[in-house]
């Protein structure tokens, strides 16, 4: 008998669906749906109470309409009502509606939670299951809050039905995924592990899923699951298939459970216990053996299930990476699958082999399959499989087979699917660089790459080839010759023109001896491409031309003519026009010596990780890239792994800027420095020479280049002033020959106002003066500032500051202006520290000690010991502490030489009470500072700020601590305890609570 008898549906629903299906057009369908929606709405709104059946019918119609892609904005309330029905079918449809349609609609969630609560408490397993399903399917935070503690109880209760246990396990898993902080770990964890021994395999499967997820987060708590999982797995793989009756699927014993158990074991290293380990190895061997047995059924389901287990076992073997024997067997097994007629298996085999290739035990074994993989690349009809083949070739590549693999990938590139071309380009570029033995091969490969798939060659790839050519003088001549030849082709890709322009501009002289590539020929060749190129490329070519003038004085006239032509000097593009004007002028007025210095060959780039690799990682997600062996070096000879983490997090563009502008050594005689100081040319000029390789990023780069030149020294100066501002609000924060910056600031609660005064010390006016404040954690609002500062004048700018929450990074003020045509760029740290938002608080000594005790948790207290810098003058110290922001409390500390203070840090979100104690030791010329606040980060931060001088490094601080405990004759805790007991029991005086009751101290 069919489980669903076909006729017992709802008539109205069936008619409606048929109507929809009969609609001839989209418009008719929409019309019919709107009619129905109106009908349902009026029914729901009508005075007549609907019976359960009608509600159910209408809710079903709404579900159907929703499936067709129409918005449903009502009916939720009716569905919620159905939840509390006693009839199972009505309840069920209510839950269905909610899990399909309701998200975190907060008004309803409360009602839904109520219904769920009732059903969970009903002890009716069917209702409980419905409720658990609903929690798992919606999985919202409100639900987690309401039920996270209830579900573990249901899961481990002795009298819970198996089916409910199953649901409860997965429900808990779901909540753990969506709101892990709300699911309390507790005494139930041990009992959950024991569910692995449950009689019911469905329960075990669900529990295994749960434990796998939990074990990934806190492996130690679930360590015991390893032995249970191995035991269970062993029982399954060695059982005759009939033992597991219902859980045998096409003659395979419990395949899903086996897969889950093998996944769970992948959360842990190989078991240390030898007997357990050998039992596991036995299991894995049995699974591998079974793969060789003749199939028990011809059905594809049989082989699928069997292979699902097999692949998971292989993954575990690879994960453990400890048994060479098993690894090689796994590799052979995968090798068989590579030639299997099932596409699915070929796909999975390629995928698994990719991870296998990174194991040192099996790397060689994987390499033996190279022909098969290359063949797959050529003949496979399915792009998904070809993609996996590319991945595997990349993973198995090493010095011995790199030429073959790169050649195959290049030839595949000509016909590859557009969707994966860019990735292949990156991979080829990386492999070519990594395994290049001679650089002529490398240069050939990259030029081929540009020829075959120029559109897919990203900036990083051609930047990289230039970096390498510049750094290796043995390849420069060859590179010049090769690009010269490549440029002969009537149609070249623009990327090739860029590389060609750059390389000939630098090294064209190396091939100029040959009359076939004389300077004039080279220039004409480059210039023949000029008009077909985009603006950035043309800009690059112009730079190449000026370099030619230096390299080959004989073509100077020709090039000057070109630069002088109207199409250059009056070009509509301002960048091109400027370059043409400046280069022309430079070539006319500068002597040969100056030209030679200005246009010197580029200095070598600093050795770094290839930015291409970072790009590929970004594209694929680093987890998917098989890590190459650490010991393998890239072309530059530096191991590329050291900087992986750092580099991967940066966008490639930034990398390059950094590479060129920041890390480049700046010898004082360097060509790049010269123009800025002597000739007052415009900024782009320097840009052109030093940053030829990144014309497209000109604007942003510019600033970087200059910030290095003009502000390196002054920034240090500002750092010097900075600490003084911890305890004061006014003064000069920055000064150099040109500019003086003064500050005046005032703070109230979490708000501050800062007046910044910019003084022009020169006799020339500053033009295009502009400022910006960059801050991570504060809200800073800048009032506009006058773009012009007259000679000797001062302008004022107001900054409004709001402290949102406690912070550690100070805001940075960036100032830009033109002085005599040169762009100046200055960066100043603004002294807005956490202690600026202190409000001093007076309190009695009794209150003080009470608070002090309440803040006794170890992370709330921070202590440090430091040496007195000057004379230990009590008045000076007092002034400093008051400047720091706290109120000084007299007569609190029994030792009159000690200082005690209290205050509240105001932020927009919270207020943090803070107690401070400073003990001077005049003999040792030391201070000990103790801070207690209710927030750990605040304690830390304040402690860093005080003293504004250098603290004793932690290593030497330890013995000093003894010094203090020895000289101190009393213990605060003892005193406060005593006072507390003798004081009249008026209860705590909320001394710190006056500020709106939001104070955290002692709360």
């Amino acid at each position: 008998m069919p489980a669903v008898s076909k006729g017992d549906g709802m008539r109205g629903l069936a008619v409606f669906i048929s109507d929809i299906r009969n609609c001839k057009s989209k418009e008719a369908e929409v019309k019919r749906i709107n009619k129905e929606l109106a009908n349902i709405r009026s029914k729901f709104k009508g005075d007549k109470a609907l019976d359960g059946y009608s509600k159910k019918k209408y809710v079903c119609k709404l579900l159907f309409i929703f499936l067709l892609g129409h918005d449903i904005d009502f009916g939720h309330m009716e569905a919620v009502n159905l939840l509390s029905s006693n009839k199972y079918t009505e309840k069920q449809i209510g839950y269905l509606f909610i899990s399909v349609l309701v998200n975190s609609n907060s008004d309803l969630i409360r009602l839904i939670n109520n219904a769920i609560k009732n059903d969970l408490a009903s002890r009716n397993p069917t209702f409980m299951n419905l409720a658990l399903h609903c929690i798992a399917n919606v999985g919202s935070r409100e639900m987690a809050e309401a039920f996270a503690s209830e579900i573990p109880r249901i899961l481990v209760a002795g009298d819970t039905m198996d089916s409910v246990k199953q649901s409860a396990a997965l429900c808990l898993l779901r909540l753990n995924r969506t709101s892990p902080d709300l699911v309390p770990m507790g005494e139930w964890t041990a009992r959950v592990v024991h569910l692995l021994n449950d009689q019911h395999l469905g329960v075990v499967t669900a529990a295994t899923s749960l434990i796998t997820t939990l074990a990934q987060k806190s492996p130690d708590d679930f360590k015991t699951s390893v032995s249970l999982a191995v035991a269970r797995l062993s029982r399954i793989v060695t059982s005759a298939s009939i033992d597991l009756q219902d859980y045998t699927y096409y003659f395979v014993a419990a395949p899903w459970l086996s897969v889950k158990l093998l996944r769970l074991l992948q959360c842990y290293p190989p078991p240390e216990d030898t007997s357990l380990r050998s039992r596991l190895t036995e299991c894995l061997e049995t699974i591998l053996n079974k793969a060789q047995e003749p199939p028990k059924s011809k059905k594809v389901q049989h082989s699928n299930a069997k292979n699902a287990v097999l692949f998971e076992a292989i993954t575990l073997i690879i994960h453990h990476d400890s048994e060479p024997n098993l690894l090689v067997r796994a590799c052979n097994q995968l090798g068989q699958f590579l030639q299997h007629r099932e596409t699915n298996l070929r796909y999975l085999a390629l995928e698994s082999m990719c991870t296998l290739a990174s194991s040192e035990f099996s790397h060689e074994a994987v390499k033996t399959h190279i022909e098969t993989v290359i063949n797959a690349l050529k003949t496979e009809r399915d792009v998904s499989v070809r993609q996996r083949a590319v991945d595997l070739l990349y993973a198995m590549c090493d010095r011995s087979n790199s030429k073959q693999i790169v050649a195959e990938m290049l030839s595949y590139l000509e016909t590859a699917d557009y969707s994966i071309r860019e990735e292949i380009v990156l991979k080829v570029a990386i492999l070519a660089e990594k395994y290049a033995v001679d650089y002529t091969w490398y240069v050939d490969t990259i030029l081929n790459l540009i020829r075959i798939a120029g559109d897919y060659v990203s900036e990083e790839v051609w930047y990289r080839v230039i970096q390498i050519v510049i750094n290796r003088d043995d390849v420069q001549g060859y590179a010049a010759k090769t690009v010269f030849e490549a440029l002969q082709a009537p149609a070249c890709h623009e990327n090739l023109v860029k590389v060609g322009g750059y390389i000939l501009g630098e090294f064209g002289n190396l091939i100029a001896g040959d009359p076939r590539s004389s300077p004039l020929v080279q220039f004409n060749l480059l210039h023949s491409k000029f008009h077909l190129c985009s603006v950035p490329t043309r800009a690059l070519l112009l730079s190449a031309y000026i370099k030619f003038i230096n390299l080959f004085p004989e073509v100077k006239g020709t090039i000057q003519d070109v630069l002088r032509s109207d199409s250059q000097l009056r070009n509509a593009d301002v960048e091109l026009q400027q370059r043409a004007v400046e280069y022309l002028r430079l070539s006319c007025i500068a002597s040969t010596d100056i030209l030679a210095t200005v246009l010197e060959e580029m200095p070598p780039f600093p050795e770094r990780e290839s930015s291409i690799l970072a790009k590929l990682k970004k594209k694929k997600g680093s987890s998917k890239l098989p890590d190459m062996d650490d010991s393998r070096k890239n072309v530059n000879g530096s191991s590329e792994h050291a900087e992986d983490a750092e580099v991967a997090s940066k966008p490639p563009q930034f990398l390059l800027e950094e590479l060129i502008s920041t890390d480049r050594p700046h010898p004082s005689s360097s060509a790049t420095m010269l123009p800025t100081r002597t000739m007052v040319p415009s900024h782009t000029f320097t840009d052109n020479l030093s940053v030829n390789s990144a014309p497209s990023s000109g604007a942003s780069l510019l600033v970087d280049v200059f910030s290095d030149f003009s502000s390196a020294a002054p920034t240090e100066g500002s750092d010097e002033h900075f600490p003084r501002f911890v305890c004061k609000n006014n003064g000069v924060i920055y000064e150099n020959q040109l500019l003086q910056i003064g500050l005046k600031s005032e703070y109230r609660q979490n708000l501050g106002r800062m007046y910044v005064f910019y003084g022009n010390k020169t006799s020339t006016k500053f033009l295009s003066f502009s400022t910006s404040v960059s801050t991570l954690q504060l809200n800073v609002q800048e009032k506009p500032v006058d773009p012009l500062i007259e000679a000797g004048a001062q302008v004022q700018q107001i900054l409004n500051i709001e402290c949102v929450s406690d912070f550690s990074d100070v805001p940075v003020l960036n100032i830009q202006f033109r002085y005599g045509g040169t762009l100046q760029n200055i960066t100043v740290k603004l002294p807005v520290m956490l202690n600026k938002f202190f409000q001093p608080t007076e309190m009695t000594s009794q209150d003080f000690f009470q608070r002090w005790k309440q803040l006794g948790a170890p992370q709330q207290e921070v202590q440090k010991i430091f040496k007195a810098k000057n004379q230990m003058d009590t008045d000076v110290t007092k002034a400093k502490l008051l400047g720091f922001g706290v109120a000084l409390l007299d007569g609190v500390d029994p030792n009159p030489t000690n200082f005690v203070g209290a205050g509240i840090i105001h932020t927009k979100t919270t207020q943090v009470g803070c107690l401070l104690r400073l003990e001077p030791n005049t003999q040792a010329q030391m201070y000990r500072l103790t801070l207690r606040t209710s927030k750990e980060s605040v304690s830390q931060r304040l402690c860093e700020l005080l003293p504004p001088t250098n603290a004793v490094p932690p290593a030497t601080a330890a013995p000093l601590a003894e010094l203090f405990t020895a000289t101190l004759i009393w213990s605060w805790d003892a005193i406060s305890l005593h006072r507390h007991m003798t004081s009249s029991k008026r209860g705590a005086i909320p001394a710190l609570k006056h500020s709106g009751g939001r104070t955290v101290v002692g709360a």
Partner: protein
Amino acid sequence: MIKAILIFNNHGKPRLSKFYEHYNEDTEQQIIRETFHLVSKRDENVCNFLEGGLLIGGLDYKLIYRHYATLYFVFCVDSSESELGILDLIQVFVETLDKCFENVCELDLIFHVDKVHHILAEMVMGGMVLETNMNEIITQVDAQNKMEKSEAGIAGAPARAVSAVKNMNLPEMPKNINIGDISIK
């Protein structure tokens, strides 16, 4: 984790959509369209896995699908699921539907969308595989039906009308899927 389960026919008409992660309605419809677009253009004998679309998941996600006569069954899963395991879960799902509906066809899914949801709920819960044993699933579904019968006194008459409607005015009735003797691919 299973992120979504989609069933649509050869023309891309959705027959069931179940999302285990929240998207708004528009995105859900877009995902269905994108998935249909990705899956439908593939040949019959290529592999059953493909890298996920852009809307759902991104890099870590795969679409695992099967094509039966007029319907595509697509599971969108992350890397924590075994590909072949999910492929067979689809098979179990279809076999279960076939048992419950007796020679299931597309029309059954259309007219009994609630039932299909209930059957699916017995197998997958909140994106996790709940039960894989077909007998267990069918027992649960049977129990539900019994309860339904005992509650439904008035359902008899509409039932006959439904079957009449079903056979009467449907101009383009699709062929039965006939999963009894399934020939996959």
